[in-house]
C-alpha cells in the first residue's frame, strides 16, 4: 500500500485532492499511534480506499504539539475515529465538530493507550458521585498479579502450549 508522510498543515488539502481528483472516496480507517523515541511523540494514520480503482492509500501525519487537523469535514466517518484517538492518546483534532471522549467517560483524566499509562489503571473517583457515595466504589487499578486467574508457574503438562520462560511476572520482571 503506498504510504505518504503528510504535514499536518497540508492534510486537508491532500485528503480532499485524493477524494475529489483521485477517487479515494472512502475513509477505511483512522487511528492514533505513539512512537517512542521520536521527536514527535504522536501520529495519526489514515487509510483511504478508492471504491472505483479498488486501491488503498495510507497517510501518516505527525501530531506536532499533539494536534492534527480534523478530516471529519471531508469524511464524516472520521468523526468517531478521531474521538477515539483523542480519548486513547490525547491527540487533539482541530476543527472537530464534537471533540468529546468516546470510550471512557467525560471526566476521566488520563489517556489509557499512551505507553506511560499502566495497563492496570490508575485510581480515580467513580464516574458518578452519588453512586460512589452509596457503594463506596472507586475506579481501582487491577494489576494482573492478584487477579483470579493468576498462574503459579510451571507447565501443566508437556502437551500444553505455553511460553518457554514463565518465571517473569509484574512483580518479578523479565531479566
Amino acid at each position: 500500500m503506498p504510504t505518504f508522510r503528510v504535514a499536518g498543515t497540508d492534510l486537508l488539502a491532500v485528503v480532499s485532492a485524493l477524494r475529489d481528483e483521485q477517487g479515494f472516496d472512502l475513509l477505511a480507517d483512522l487511528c492514533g499511534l505513539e512512537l517512542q523515541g521520536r521527536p514527535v511523540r504522536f501520529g495519526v494514520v489514515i487509510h483511504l480506499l478508492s471504491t472505483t480503482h479498488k486501491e488503498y492509500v495510507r497517510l501518516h501525519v505527525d501530531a506536532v504539539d499533539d494536534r492534527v487537523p480534523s478530516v471529519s469535514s471531508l469524511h464524516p466517518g472520521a468523526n468517531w475515529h478521531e474521538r477515539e484517538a483523542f480519548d486513547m492518546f490525547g491527540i487533539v483534532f482541530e476543527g472537530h465538530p464534537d471533540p468529546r471522549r468516546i470510550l471512557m467517560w467525560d471526566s476521566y483524566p488520563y489517556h489509557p493507550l499512551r505507553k506511560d499509562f499502566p495497563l492496570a489503571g490508575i485510581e480515580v473517583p467513580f464516574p458518578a458521585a452519588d453512586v460512589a457515595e452509596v457503594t463506596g466504589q472507586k475506579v481501582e487499578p487491577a494489576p494482573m498479579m492478584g487477579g483470579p486467574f493468576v498462574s503459579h508457574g510451571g507447565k501443566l503438562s508437556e502437551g500444553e502450549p505455553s511460553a518457554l520462560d514463565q518465571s517473569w511476572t509484574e512483580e518479578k520482571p523479565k531479566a
Partner: protein
Amino acid sequence: MVKSDFGYNSKVEGEVIVTRADAVVNWVRSHSVWPMPMGLACCAIELMAAGGSRFDISRFGMEVMRFSPRQADCMIVAGTVTYKMAEVVRRIYDQMAEPKWVVAMGACASTGGMYRSYATLQGVDNIVPVDIYISGCPPRPEALLDGMMLLQEKIRNEGGSLRRTFRGRTVETKIVS
C-alpha cells in the same frame, strides 16, 4: 380458589389450607421471576439462547424479560461491566421494585473475568448485592438455568419480612395483607 384434583382437594382438606404467609409469598415469587436482561457483552448471547425454545426459560416462569426495571424482579447481569456502564447498572438496580435479586452471569460479571484493566469493574458485586454467581465464559444456557433454579430455591427459603443488607444498609420489604 379453583377446585381441582391437583393440589387442593376439598374432601381431604375440608376447604381449609394451613400454611405460613412466607411460604405462600415465596412460592408465588419464586415461580414468576421476571428477569431484567442486563446484557452487556458476549454472555448476553447465551442469555438469549436460554430464552429460546431449545432451552426454554419459560418452564420456570422467567420468560417475561422486562426491559423496564420497574416491572422486573431479577437483574441478570450478563457480560463485562465497565466503569462507564457500572453507573447505569446501579441506577437500573435502584429503579427496580423490592423484592429484587441479582444474578451475576459469567466470569466478567462475577469478578471482571479476564479483563483486568483500567476500564473494567472487577465484579458487579462491588456496586449491587449479588445473590447467585454463575461460572463460565460464557456459561451455557443450562448453567444459567441451574443458577436460576438455585435462585428459586433461595427465594423459597427467604424468611420474615425479607430484610436485605447491603454495605451496612438494611432494606426491608413489608408484606401488606
